[in-house]
Protein backbone atom coordinates (compact mmCIF):
# COMPACT_ATOMS: atom_id res chain seq x y z
CA UNK A 1 0.00 0.00 0.00
CA UNK A 2 2.81 2.33 1.00
CA UNK A 3 4.71 1.60 -2.21
CA UNK A 4 1.62 2.44 -4.20
CA UNK A 5 1.23 5.73 -2.31
CA UNK A 6 4.84 6.68 -2.96
CA UNK A 7 4.48 5.88 -6.64
CA UNK A 8 1.23 7.87 -6.77
CA UNK A 9 2.80 10.90 -5.06
CA UNK A 10 5.84 10.66 -7.35
CA UNK A 11 3.63 10.67 -10.43
CA UNK A 12 1.67 13.62 -8.99
CA UNK A 13 4.82 15.62 -8.23
CA UNK A 14 6.41 14.72 -11.53
CA UNK A 15 3.25 15.69 -13.35
CA UNK A 16 3.17 19.02 -11.52
CA UNK A 17 6.77 19.74 -12.42
CA UNK A 18 6.22 18.74 -16.02
CA UNK A 19 3.10 20.90 -16.15
CA UNK A 20 4.91 23.90 -14.72
CA UNK A 21 7.73 23.41 -17.20
CA UNK A 22 5.31 23.23 -20.11
CA UNK A 23 3.49 26.38 -18.92
CA UNK A 24 6.86 28.12 -18.56
CA UNK A 25 7.99 27.09 -22.00
CA UNK A 26 4.69 28.11 -23.58
CA UNK A 27 4.90 31.44 -21.74
CA UNK A 28 8.42 32.00 -22.95
CA UNK A 29 7.56 31.13 -26.52
CA UNK A 30 4.35 33.15 -26.75
CA UNK A 31 5.39 36.26 -24.80
CA UNK A 32 6.79 39.25 -26.69
CA UNK A 33 10.57 39.07 -27.07
CA UNK A 34 12.19 40.01 -23.78
CA UNK A 35 14.99 41.84 -25.51
CA UNK A 36 13.65 44.49 -27.84
CA UNK A 37 15.79 44.45 -30.97
CA UNK A 38 18.23 47.33 -31.02
CA UNK A 39 17.56 50.08 -33.53
CA UNK A 40 20.90 49.85 -35.26
CA UNK A 41 20.54 53.17 -37.04
CA UNK A 42 20.02 55.15 -33.83
CA UNK A 43 23.30 56.67 -32.64
CA UNK A 44 22.16 56.60 -29.00
CA UNK A 45 21.19 53.07 -28.05
CA UNK A 46 18.77 52.66 -25.19
CA UNK A 47 20.43 51.13 -22.14
CA UNK A 48 17.08 49.61 -21.34
CA UNK A 49 13.34 50.03 -21.10
CA UNK A 50 11.22 49.81 -18.00
CA UNK A 51 8.16 48.24 -19.60
Amino acid at each position, binding site marked *: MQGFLIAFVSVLVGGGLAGATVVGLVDSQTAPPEKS*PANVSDPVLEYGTTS
Partner: protein
Amino acid sequence: MRFVARYAPAAWALALGLLLLGPALGPGYLLTYDMVWVPDLALRGDFWGLGTALPRAVPSDAVVAVLDSVVPGMVLQKVVLLGALALGGLGAIRLAGRSTAARLVAVSAYVWTPFVVERLWIGHWPLLLCWAVLPWLVVEAARFRGDGRLGAALPFLLVVGSLSANAGVMSALVLLGVGLTRRGAVRLALAVVAANAPWLVAGVLHLDSATSSAAGGVFGVNAEGSLPTPLSVLTLGGIWNAEVVPASRTGVVLPLVLAGVLVAAAVAGWPLLRERLGRRTMDALVASWLLGYGLALLSWAAPETVGGLAGHVPGGGLLRDGGRFLALCAPLTAALMAAGAERLAGRWRELAPKVVVGVAGALLPLALMPDAAWGGGGDLDPATYPDDWAAARAALADPPPGDLVVLPFTSYRAPTWNGGRKVLDPLARYLQRDYVVNDQLAVDGRLISGEDPRVPAVLDALQEPDATSRATALGRLGIGIVARETDVPTSPAYDAPVAGTRIFHGASVDVVRIDAPVALREPPTSWVVALSAAWGAFLLLLLGGTWNVFSLLWSRMRTRRGFQ
Protein backbone atom coordinates in the same frame (compact mmCIF):
# COMPACT_ATOMS: atom_id res chain seq x y z
CA MET B 1 24.35 5.81 -1.51
CA ARG B 2 26.34 7.75 1.07
CA PHE B 3 28.62 8.91 -1.74
CA VAL B 4 25.66 10.23 -3.71
CA ALA B 5 24.19 11.94 -0.65
CA ARG B 6 27.52 13.58 0.07
CA TYR B 7 28.43 14.89 -3.34
CA ALA B 8 25.08 15.29 -5.12
CA PRO B 9 24.36 18.83 -3.78
CA ALA B 10 27.81 20.11 -4.79
CA ALA B 11 27.50 18.48 -8.21
CA TRP B 12 24.05 20.05 -8.54
CA ALA B 13 25.49 23.49 -7.75
CA LEU B 14 28.06 23.08 -10.53
CA ALA B 15 25.46 21.66 -12.92
CA LEU B 16 23.15 24.64 -12.41
CA GLY B 17 26.02 27.02 -13.08
CA LEU B 18 26.83 25.17 -16.30
CA LEU B 19 23.17 25.12 -17.30
CA LEU B 20 22.65 28.85 -16.65
CA LEU B 21 25.71 29.84 -18.65
CA GLY B 22 25.50 27.26 -21.44
CA PRO B 23 27.00 28.69 -24.62
CA ALA B 24 28.62 31.54 -22.70
CA LEU B 25 31.31 29.06 -21.68
CA GLY B 26 32.40 28.54 -25.29
CA PRO B 27 35.31 30.36 -26.93
CA GLY B 28 34.99 34.14 -26.98
CA TYR B 29 33.86 36.87 -24.61
CA LEU B 30 30.40 37.20 -23.12
CA LEU B 31 29.53 40.85 -23.77
CA THR B 32 26.12 41.83 -22.46
CA TYR B 33 25.05 45.29 -21.30
CA ASP B 34 27.47 46.22 -18.48
CA MET B 35 29.62 43.10 -18.79
CA VAL B 36 32.74 44.00 -20.74
CA TRP B 37 35.72 41.68 -20.73
CA VAL B 38 38.69 42.09 -23.04
CA PRO B 39 41.70 39.88 -23.78
CA ASP B 40 44.08 41.87 -21.60
CA LEU B 41 42.72 44.72 -19.53
CA ALA B 42 45.69 47.04 -19.07
CA LEU B 43 46.09 48.56 -15.61
CA ARG B 44 45.78 52.34 -15.82
CA GLY B 45 45.55 55.24 -13.41
CA ASP B 46 41.78 55.59 -13.59
CA PHE B 47 41.30 52.00 -12.40
CA TRP B 48 42.91 53.00 -9.10
CA GLY B 49 40.28 55.73 -8.73
CA LEU B 50 42.27 58.66 -10.13
CA GLY B 51 39.97 59.42 -13.07
CA THR B 52 37.57 62.29 -13.47
CA ALA B 53 34.53 60.00 -13.60
CA LEU B 54 32.79 58.61 -10.52
CA PRO B 55 34.76 55.41 -9.78
CA ARG B 56 31.97 52.91 -10.47
CA ALA B 57 34.36 50.09 -11.42
CA VAL B 58 36.73 50.48 -8.46
CA PRO B 59 38.16 48.07 -7.42
CA SER B 60 36.77 45.48 -9.87
CA ASP B 61 38.62 46.78 -12.97
CA ALA B 62 41.97 46.94 -11.18
CA VAL B 63 41.52 43.43 -9.77
CA VAL B 64 40.69 42.06 -13.24
CA ALA B 65 43.61 43.97 -14.78
CA VAL B 66 46.00 42.34 -12.31
CA LEU B 67 44.51 38.85 -12.60
CA ASP B 68 44.34 38.82 -16.39
CA SER B 69 48.05 39.41 -16.59
CA VAL B 70 48.30 35.87 -15.19
CA VAL B 71 45.18 34.21 -16.66
CA PRO B 72 43.91 35.21 -20.14
CA GLY B 73 40.85 37.46 -19.97
CA MET B 74 38.66 34.97 -21.82
CA VAL B 75 39.41 32.18 -19.36
CA LEU B 76 39.21 34.50 -16.38
CA GLN B 77 35.70 35.64 -17.34
CA LYS B 78 34.45 32.05 -17.49
CA VAL B 79 36.15 31.18 -14.22
CA VAL B 80 34.55 34.20 -12.55
CA LEU B 81 31.05 33.55 -13.90
CA LEU B 82 30.96 29.79 -13.39
CA GLY B 83 32.86 30.16 -10.12
CA ALA B 84 30.34 32.69 -8.82
CA LEU B 85 27.33 30.53 -9.65
CA ALA B 86 28.90 27.38 -8.21
CA LEU B 87 30.19 29.22 -5.15
CA GLY B 88 26.73 30.63 -4.49
CA GLY B 89 25.19 27.16 -4.68
CA LEU B 90 27.86 25.65 -2.44
CA GLY B 91 27.32 28.47 0.05
CA ALA B 92 23.60 27.75 0.15
CA ILE B 93 24.43 24.15 1.08
CA ARG B 94 26.20 25.49 4.17
CA LEU B 95 22.96 27.11 5.32
CA ALA B 96 20.85 24.02 4.71
CA GLY B 97 21.86 21.58 7.44
CA ARG B 98 22.66 17.90 6.87
CA SER B 99 19.65 16.67 4.91
CA THR B 100 20.55 15.92 1.29
CA ALA B 101 17.03 16.81 0.14
CA ALA B 102 17.27 20.16 1.88
CA ARG B 103 20.70 20.82 0.42
CA LEU B 104 19.52 20.14 -3.12
CA VAL B 105 16.56 22.46 -2.61
CA ALA B 106 18.82 25.14 -1.11
CA VAL B 107 21.09 25.07 -4.17
CA SER B 108 18.22 25.51 -6.62
CA ALA B 109 16.46 28.12 -4.49
CA TYR B 110 19.67 30.14 -4.29
CA VAL B 111 20.95 29.81 -7.84
CA TRP B 112 17.92 29.46 -10.12
CA THR B 113 16.29 32.77 -9.25
CA PRO B 114 15.17 35.77 -11.30
CA PHE B 115 17.75 37.85 -9.41
CA VAL B 116 20.66 35.73 -10.60
CA VAL B 117 19.39 35.32 -14.15
CA GLU B 118 18.53 39.00 -14.65
CA ARG B 119 21.80 40.26 -13.14
CA LEU B 120 23.73 37.79 -15.25
CA TRP B 121 21.97 38.90 -18.41
CA ILE B 122 22.55 42.59 -17.63
CA GLY B 123 26.18 41.83 -16.84
CA HIS B 124 26.47 42.81 -13.16
CA TRP B 125 29.17 40.29 -12.35
CA PRO B 126 30.62 42.02 -9.24
CA LEU B 127 27.11 41.93 -7.80
CA LEU B 128 26.88 38.22 -8.58
CA LEU B 129 30.18 37.66 -6.80
CA CYS B 130 28.76 39.45 -3.77
CA TRP B 131 25.61 37.31 -3.94
CA ALA B 132 27.84 34.21 -4.17
CA VAL B 133 29.81 34.95 -1.01
CA LEU B 134 26.90 36.10 1.17
CA PRO B 135 25.99 32.62 2.53
CA TRP B 136 29.68 31.94 3.15
CA LEU B 137 29.95 35.24 4.99
CA VAL B 138 26.99 34.20 7.17
CA VAL B 139 28.72 30.96 8.11
CA GLU B 140 32.13 32.59 8.63
CA ALA B 141 30.64 35.46 10.64
CA ALA B 142 28.83 33.00 12.91
CA ARG B 143 32.14 31.19 13.42
CA PHE B 144 33.92 34.47 14.13
CA ARG B 145 31.36 35.23 16.81
CA GLY B 146 32.42 32.05 18.53
CA ASP B 147 36.21 31.98 18.18
CA GLY B 148 37.04 35.63 17.43
CA ARG B 149 39.50 34.71 14.64
CA LEU B 150 39.29 36.21 11.16
CA GLY B 151 40.44 32.86 9.78
CA ALA B 152 41.79 31.96 6.37
CA ALA B 153 38.68 32.33 4.22
CA LEU B 154 36.98 35.43 5.62
CA PRO B 155 39.41 38.08 4.23
CA PHE B 156 39.18 36.60 0.73
CA LEU B 157 35.40 36.28 0.88
CA LEU B 158 35.14 39.87 1.99
CA VAL B 159 37.35 41.09 -0.86
CA VAL B 160 35.48 39.04 -3.47
CA GLY B 161 32.19 40.34 -2.12
CA SER B 162 33.30 43.99 -2.17
CA LEU B 163 34.36 44.58 -5.78
CA SER B 164 31.81 47.37 -6.25
CA ALA B 165 30.15 49.89 -3.96
CA ASN B 166 26.73 48.19 -3.64
CA ALA B 167 28.39 44.82 -3.25
CA GLY B 168 30.73 46.11 -0.56
CA VAL B 169 27.88 47.63 1.41
CA MET B 170 25.86 44.40 1.32
CA SER B 171 28.81 42.18 2.24
CA ALA B 172 29.62 44.48 5.13
CA LEU B 173 26.03 44.53 6.37
CA VAL B 174 25.74 40.75 6.38
CA LEU B 175 29.14 40.20 7.96
CA LEU B 176 28.64 42.78 10.68
CA GLY B 177 25.02 41.81 11.24
CA VAL B 178 25.87 38.19 11.90
CA GLY B 179 29.38 38.43 13.29
CA LEU B 180 29.68 41.65 15.28
CA THR B 181 30.49 41.15 18.95
CA ARG B 182 31.95 43.53 21.50
CA ARG B 183 35.12 41.42 21.65
CA GLY B 184 35.73 41.26 17.89
CA ALA B 185 34.18 44.53 16.81
CA VAL B 186 37.44 46.34 16.03
CA ARG B 187 38.95 43.49 14.00
CA LEU B 188 35.78 42.92 12.01
CA ALA B 189 35.26 46.63 11.37
CA LEU B 190 38.89 47.03 10.24
CA ALA B 191 38.53 44.11 7.83
CA VAL B 192 35.34 45.62 6.40
CA VAL B 193 36.94 49.06 6.01
CA ALA B 194 40.05 47.57 4.36
CA ALA B 195 37.99 45.58 1.85
CA ASN B 196 35.95 48.65 0.93
CA ALA B 197 38.68 51.25 1.21
CA PRO B 198 39.46 51.65 -2.54
CA TRP B 199 35.93 52.60 -3.63
CA LEU B 200 35.19 54.44 -0.38
CA VAL B 201 38.25 56.70 -0.66
CA ALA B 202 37.87 57.13 -4.42
CA GLY B 203 34.22 58.03 -3.83
CA VAL B 204 35.11 60.62 -1.19
CA LEU B 205 37.70 62.14 -3.53
CA HIS B 206 34.99 62.49 -6.19
CA LEU B 207 32.49 63.98 -3.76
CA ASP B 208 31.87 66.99 -5.99
CA SER B 209 30.65 64.67 -8.76
CA ALA B 210 29.17 61.97 -6.51
CA THR B 211 25.58 62.91 -7.20
CA SER B 212 23.72 61.31 -10.10
CA SER B 213 20.85 62.53 -12.19
CA ALA B 214 17.61 62.95 -10.24
CA ALA B 215 15.96 61.12 -13.14
CA GLY B 216 17.61 57.96 -11.77
CA GLY B 217 14.22 56.95 -10.33
CA VAL B 218 13.70 54.92 -13.52
CA PHE B 219 16.10 52.35 -12.11
CA GLY B 220 13.65 51.28 -9.40
CA VAL B 221 12.20 47.76 -9.34
CA ASN B 222 9.27 46.98 -11.62
CA ALA B 223 6.44 44.52 -11.87
CA GLU B 224 7.28 41.58 -14.09
CA GLY B 225 4.29 40.73 -16.27
CA SER B 226 0.95 40.85 -14.50
CA LEU B 227 2.36 40.11 -11.05
CA PRO B 228 2.24 43.14 -8.71
CA THR B 229 5.64 44.62 -7.94
CA PRO B 230 5.74 43.53 -4.25
CA LEU B 231 5.16 39.90 -5.36
CA SER B 232 7.70 40.15 -8.18
CA VAL B 233 10.21 41.42 -5.65
CA LEU B 234 9.24 38.73 -3.13
CA THR B 235 10.31 36.13 -5.68
CA LEU B 236 13.60 38.05 -6.14
CA GLY B 237 12.66 39.50 -9.51
CA GLY B 238 11.63 42.97 -10.64
CA ILE B 239 14.77 44.35 -12.26
CA TRP B 240 14.17 47.81 -13.76
CA ASN B 241 15.18 46.76 -17.29
CA ALA B 242 12.37 44.77 -18.91
CA GLU B 243 14.75 43.70 -21.69
CA VAL B 244 16.54 41.23 -19.41
CA VAL B 245 13.48 39.65 -17.79
CA PRO B 246 12.97 36.00 -18.79
CA ALA B 247 9.72 35.56 -20.71
CA SER B 248 8.48 32.94 -18.23
CA ARG B 249 8.45 35.71 -15.61
CA THR B 250 6.06 37.82 -17.63
CA GLY B 251 3.16 35.41 -17.14
CA VAL B 252 1.20 35.40 -13.93
CA VAL B 253 0.83 31.69 -13.08
CA LEU B 254 4.43 30.59 -12.58
CA PRO B 255 5.67 33.58 -10.54
CA LEU B 256 2.50 33.29 -8.44
CA VAL B 257 3.20 29.58 -7.82
CA LEU B 258 6.74 30.48 -6.81
CA ALA B 259 5.49 33.16 -4.42
CA GLY B 260 3.07 30.65 -2.88
CA VAL B 261 5.76 28.01 -2.47
CA LEU B 262 8.13 30.54 -0.90
CA VAL B 263 5.56 31.63 1.66
CA ALA B 264 4.56 28.04 2.47
CA ALA B 265 8.20 26.98 2.84
CA ALA B 266 8.95 29.99 5.02
CA VAL B 267 6.09 29.17 7.38
CA ALA B 268 7.00 25.47 7.49
CA GLY B 269 10.75 25.92 7.74
CA TRP B 270 10.95 28.85 10.14
CA PRO B 271 11.09 26.95 13.48
CA LEU B 272 13.59 24.42 12.16
CA LEU B 273 15.89 27.06 10.68
CA ARG B 274 15.74 29.22 13.77
CA GLU B 275 16.68 26.25 15.92
CA ARG B 276 19.59 25.30 13.67
CA LEU B 277 21.09 28.74 13.05
CA GLY B 278 20.43 30.17 16.50
CA ARG B 279 18.58 33.32 17.39
CA ARG B 280 21.36 35.79 16.64
CA THR B 281 22.14 34.53 13.13
CA MET B 282 18.46 34.14 12.34
CA ASP B 283 17.71 37.69 13.51
CA ALA B 284 20.55 39.03 11.36
CA LEU B 285 19.28 37.12 8.31
CA VAL B 286 15.76 38.41 8.88
CA ALA B 287 17.07 41.96 9.26
CA SER B 288 19.06 41.57 6.01
CA TRP B 289 15.97 40.27 4.23
CA LEU B 290 13.82 43.13 5.50
CA LEU B 291 16.43 45.70 4.52
CA GLY B 292 16.90 44.22 1.03
CA TYR B 293 13.17 43.92 0.40
CA GLY B 294 12.53 47.37 1.87
CA LEU B 295 15.18 49.13 -0.24
CA ALA B 296 13.98 47.37 -3.37
CA LEU B 297 10.37 48.36 -2.70
CA LEU B 298 11.39 51.90 -1.80
CA SER B 299 12.85 52.35 -5.29
CA TRP B 300 9.44 51.36 -6.68
CA ALA B 301 7.16 53.12 -4.20
CA ALA B 302 9.09 56.38 -4.04
CA PRO B 303 11.15 56.72 -7.23
CA GLU B 304 11.19 60.52 -6.99
CA THR B 305 12.58 60.36 -3.46
CA VAL B 306 15.25 57.85 -4.47
CA GLY B 307 16.02 59.89 -7.60
CA GLY B 308 16.21 63.03 -5.44
CA LEU B 309 18.60 61.31 -3.04
CA ALA B 310 20.77 60.26 -5.97
CA GLY B 311 20.62 63.78 -7.35
CA HIS B 312 21.42 65.70 -4.19
CA VAL B 313 23.14 63.45 -1.64
CA PRO B 314 26.65 62.26 -2.51
CA GLY B 315 26.53 58.47 -2.71
CA GLY B 316 22.73 58.48 -2.83
CA GLY B 317 23.02 56.93 -6.29
CA LEU B 318 23.82 53.64 -4.54
CA LEU B 319 20.11 53.32 -3.78
CA ARG B 320 18.72 54.03 -7.25
CA ASP B 321 18.93 50.48 -8.64
CA GLY B 322 17.05 49.15 -5.63
CA GLY B 323 16.76 45.64 -7.07
CA ARG B 324 20.45 45.07 -6.41
CA PHE B 325 19.69 44.92 -2.70
CA LEU B 326 17.63 41.78 -3.22
CA ALA B 327 20.91 39.91 -2.82
CA LEU B 328 20.36 40.55 0.89
CA CYS B 329 17.13 38.52 0.73
CA ALA B 330 18.64 35.52 -1.04
CA PRO B 331 20.34 33.68 1.90
CA LEU B 332 17.25 33.62 4.12
CA THR B 333 14.96 32.75 1.20
CA ALA B 334 17.05 29.73 0.19
CA ALA B 335 17.59 28.61 3.78
CA LEU B 336 13.84 28.75 4.47
CA MET B 337 13.04 26.81 1.29
CA ALA B 338 15.56 24.18 2.37
CA ALA B 339 14.20 24.02 5.91
CA GLY B 340 10.65 23.70 4.56
CA ALA B 341 11.73 20.80 2.35
CA GLU B 342 13.56 19.19 5.26
CA ARG B 343 10.50 19.40 7.43
CA LEU B 344 8.36 17.91 4.68
CA ALA B 345 10.85 15.10 4.03
CA GLY B 346 11.05 14.46 7.77
CA ARG B 347 7.46 13.29 7.80
CA TRP B 348 8.55 9.95 6.33
CA ARG B 349 11.05 7.41 7.57
CA GLU B 350 11.52 5.72 4.20
CA LEU B 351 14.07 6.94 1.72
CA ALA B 352 11.83 7.08 -1.34
CA PRO B 353 9.57 9.96 -0.24
CA LYS B 354 12.60 11.92 0.91
CA VAL B 355 14.10 11.48 -2.55
CA VAL B 356 10.86 12.66 -4.12
CA VAL B 357 10.83 15.77 -1.93
CA GLY B 358 14.49 16.51 -2.66
CA VAL B 359 14.25 15.99 -6.39
CA ALA B 360 10.93 17.81 -6.76
CA GLY B 361 12.09 20.73 -4.62
CA ALA B 362 15.34 20.96 -6.55
CA LEU B 363 13.59 20.90 -9.93
CA LEU B 364 10.73 23.24 -9.03
CA PRO B 365 12.65 26.55 -9.54
CA LEU B 366 13.84 25.24 -12.94
CA ALA B 367 10.32 24.25 -13.93
CA LEU B 368 9.03 27.70 -12.99
CA MET B 369 11.68 29.51 -15.05
CA PRO B 370 12.77 27.03 -17.74
CA ASP B 371 13.81 29.67 -20.26
CA ALA B 372 16.76 30.68 -18.09
CA ALA B 373 18.46 27.42 -19.11
CA TRP B 374 21.34 27.29 -21.55
CA GLY B 375 22.10 30.96 -21.38
CA GLY B 376 18.51 32.01 -22.03
CA GLY B 377 18.08 29.55 -24.88
CA GLY B 378 21.38 30.48 -26.52
CA ASP B 379 21.14 34.26 -26.11
CA LEU B 380 24.40 34.36 -24.17
CA ASP B 381 26.62 33.53 -27.12
CA PRO B 382 30.20 34.69 -26.66
CA ALA B 383 31.67 37.07 -29.23
CA THR B 384 35.02 37.43 -30.93
CA TYR B 385 36.49 40.90 -31.26
CA PRO B 386 37.22 42.21 -34.78
CA ASP B 387 40.76 41.47 -35.92
CA ASP B 388 41.68 45.10 -36.41
CA TRP B 389 41.06 45.89 -32.74
CA ALA B 390 44.15 43.90 -31.81
CA ALA B 391 46.11 45.71 -34.51
CA ALA B 392 44.89 49.08 -33.19
CA ARG B 393 46.00 48.08 -29.72
CA ALA B 394 49.40 47.09 -31.07
CA ALA B 395 49.69 50.45 -32.83
CA LEU B 396 49.18 52.09 -29.46
CA ALA B 397 51.84 50.00 -27.73
CA ASP B 398 53.90 53.17 -27.37
CA PRO B 399 51.02 55.59 -27.01
CA PRO B 400 51.20 59.33 -27.40
CA PRO B 401 50.51 61.38 -24.27
CA GLY B 402 46.96 62.10 -23.19
CA ASP B 403 43.74 60.21 -22.64
CA LEU B 404 41.67 58.36 -25.20
CA VAL B 405 38.20 59.23 -26.45
CA VAL B 406 36.17 56.88 -28.64
CA LEU B 407 33.85 58.30 -31.30
CA PRO B 408 30.93 58.22 -31.80
CA PHE B 409 30.85 59.53 -28.25
CA THR B 410 27.96 57.31 -27.08
CA SER B 411 27.99 54.71 -24.37
CA TYR B 412 26.31 51.55 -25.73
CA ARG B 413 26.79 49.55 -28.88
CA ALA B 414 24.99 46.62 -30.49
CA PRO B 415 27.72 45.27 -32.77
CA THR B 416 26.87 42.68 -35.40
CA TRP B 417 29.91 40.68 -34.27
CA ASN B 418 28.19 40.47 -30.85
CA GLY B 419 24.99 39.12 -32.37
CA GLY B 420 23.41 42.58 -32.09
CA ARG B 421 23.43 42.30 -28.28
CA LYS B 422 23.80 45.57 -26.43
CA VAL B 423 27.01 46.18 -24.58
CA LEU B 424 28.88 49.09 -23.06
CA ASP B 425 31.37 50.07 -25.76
CA PRO B 426 34.34 47.74 -25.17
CA LEU B 427 36.89 49.60 -27.33
CA ALA B 428 38.08 52.00 -24.64
CA ARG B 429 38.86 49.12 -22.29
CA TYR B 430 40.35 47.08 -25.12
CA LEU B 431 42.93 49.79 -25.84
CA GLN B 432 45.44 50.61 -23.17
CA ARG B 433 45.02 54.24 -22.22
CA ASP B 434 42.97 56.06 -19.62
CA TYR B 435 39.79 57.12 -21.35
CA VAL B 436 36.75 59.36 -21.29
CA VAL B 437 33.48 57.60 -22.08
CA ASN B 438 30.05 59.08 -22.37
CA ASP B 439 28.25 58.14 -19.15
CA GLN B 440 24.83 59.41 -20.27
CA LEU B 441 22.26 56.62 -20.30
CA ALA B 442 19.18 56.45 -22.51
CA VAL B 443 16.21 54.78 -20.81
CA ASP B 444 12.65 54.82 -22.16
CA GLY B 445 13.73 57.44 -24.70
CA ARG B 446 15.01 59.80 -21.99
CA LEU B 447 18.65 60.74 -21.73
CA ILE B 448 19.90 60.51 -18.14
CA SER B 449 23.01 62.56 -17.55
CA GLY B 450 26.09 61.04 -15.96
CA GLU B 451 28.58 62.36 -13.46
CA ASP B 452 31.87 62.80 -15.31
CA PRO B 453 32.44 66.58 -15.73
CA ARG B 454 34.56 65.94 -18.83
CA VAL B 455 31.64 64.39 -20.77
CA PRO B 456 29.71 67.63 -21.47
CA ALA B 457 33.04 69.29 -22.23
CA VAL B 458 33.86 66.62 -24.84
CA LEU B 459 30.38 67.01 -26.38
CA ASP B 460 30.97 70.77 -26.56
CA ALA B 461 34.39 70.23 -28.14
CA LEU B 462 32.80 68.10 -30.86
CA GLN B 463 30.56 71.03 -31.75
CA GLU B 464 33.53 73.27 -32.61
CA PRO B 465 33.30 74.51 -36.22
CA ASP B 466 36.29 72.68 -37.73
CA ALA B 467 38.55 69.66 -37.18
CA THR B 468 41.50 71.73 -35.97
CA SER B 469 39.56 73.63 -33.34
CA ARG B 470 38.01 70.34 -32.17
CA ALA B 471 41.48 68.87 -31.75
CA THR B 472 42.58 71.95 -29.80
CA ALA B 473 39.52 71.78 -27.55
CA LEU B 474 40.00 68.06 -26.88
CA GLY B 475 43.69 68.61 -26.19
CA ARG B 476 42.75 71.17 -23.55
CA LEU B 477 40.68 68.42 -21.87
CA GLY B 478 43.71 66.15 -21.67
CA ILE B 479 42.74 64.02 -24.66
CA GLY B 480 45.58 62.98 -26.93
CA ILE B 481 44.10 60.04 -28.86
CA VAL B 482 40.85 59.75 -30.78
CA ALA B 483 39.65 56.30 -31.83
CA ARG B 484 36.71 56.14 -34.20
CA GLU B 485 34.56 53.07 -34.71
CA THR B 486 33.57 53.27 -38.37
CA ASP B 487 30.87 50.57 -38.25
CA VAL B 488 28.72 52.33 -35.63
CA PRO B 489 25.71 54.58 -36.33
CA THR B 490 26.62 58.17 -35.79
CA SER B 491 25.30 61.71 -35.70
CA PRO B 492 26.94 65.17 -35.64
CA ALA B 493 26.08 65.56 -31.95
CA TYR B 494 28.37 62.68 -31.04
CA ASP B 495 30.91 62.53 -33.82
CA ALA B 496 32.90 64.87 -36.00
CA PRO B 497 36.31 64.81 -37.72
CA VAL B 498 39.23 65.69 -35.44
CA ALA B 499 42.54 66.91 -36.86
CA GLY B 500 45.67 64.93 -36.12
CA THR B 501 48.03 62.27 -37.38
CA ARG B 502 46.42 58.98 -38.27
CA ILE B 503 48.37 56.23 -36.52
CA PHE B 504 46.09 53.33 -37.37
CA HIS B 505 43.52 52.59 -40.05
CA GLY B 506 41.55 49.36 -39.93
CA ALA B 507 38.32 47.89 -41.26
CA SER B 508 36.31 49.07 -38.25
CA VAL B 509 38.65 51.34 -36.27
CA ASP B 510 40.68 54.44 -37.01
CA VAL B 511 43.07 55.94 -34.48
CA VAL B 512 44.25 59.54 -34.64
CA ARG B 513 46.90 61.25 -32.53
CA ILE B 514 46.01 64.83 -31.70
CA ASP B 515 48.86 67.11 -32.71
CA ALA B 516 47.53 70.11 -30.78
CA PRO B 517 49.00 70.67 -27.29
CA VAL B 518 47.57 68.22 -24.74
CA ALA B 519 47.00 69.43 -21.19
CA LEU B 520 48.04 66.28 -19.38
CA ARG B 521 45.99 65.40 -16.36
CA GLU B 522 48.01 65.24 -13.17
CA PRO B 523 46.06 63.91 -10.20
CA PRO B 524 46.61 65.91 -7.02
CA THR B 525 49.27 64.48 -4.72
CA SER B 526 46.72 64.27 -1.93
CA TRP B 527 44.62 61.93 -4.13
CA VAL B 528 47.61 59.70 -4.83
CA VAL B 529 48.48 59.52 -1.13
CA ALA B 530 44.91 58.81 -0.04
CA LEU B 531 44.35 56.15 -2.69
CA SER B 532 47.74 54.55 -1.97
CA ALA B 533 46.69 54.20 1.66
CA ALA B 534 43.32 52.74 0.62
CA TRP B 535 44.84 50.21 -1.74
CA GLY B 536 47.50 49.45 0.88
CA ALA B 537 44.75 48.52 3.34
CA PHE B 538 43.07 46.39 0.67
CA LEU B 539 46.33 44.54 -0.01
CA LEU B 540 47.03 44.19 3.68
CA LEU B 541 43.73 42.36 4.12
CA LEU B 542 44.66 40.01 1.29
CA LEU B 543 48.11 39.47 2.80
CA GLY B 544 46.50 38.78 6.17
CA GLY B 545 44.27 36.17 4.54
CA THR B 546 47.24 34.59 2.77
CA TRP B 547 49.18 34.49 6.03
CA ASN B 548 46.23 32.78 7.72
CA VAL B 549 46.07 30.20 4.91
CA PHE B 550 49.76 29.35 5.35
CA SER B 551 49.37 29.23 9.13
CA LEU B 552 46.46 26.84 8.77
CA LEU B 553 48.35 24.60 6.35
CA TRP B 554 51.44 24.66 8.56
CA SER B 555 49.53 23.72 11.69
CA ARG B 556 47.81 20.86 9.82
CA MET B 557 51.14 19.56 8.59
CA ARG B 558 52.55 19.68 12.10
CA THR B 559 49.51 17.90 13.50
CA ARG B 560 49.83 15.17 10.87
CA ARG B 561 53.53 14.72 11.65
CA GLY B 562 52.68 14.53 15.36
CA PHE B 563 50.37 11.62 14.71
CA GLN B 564 53.05 9.82 12.71
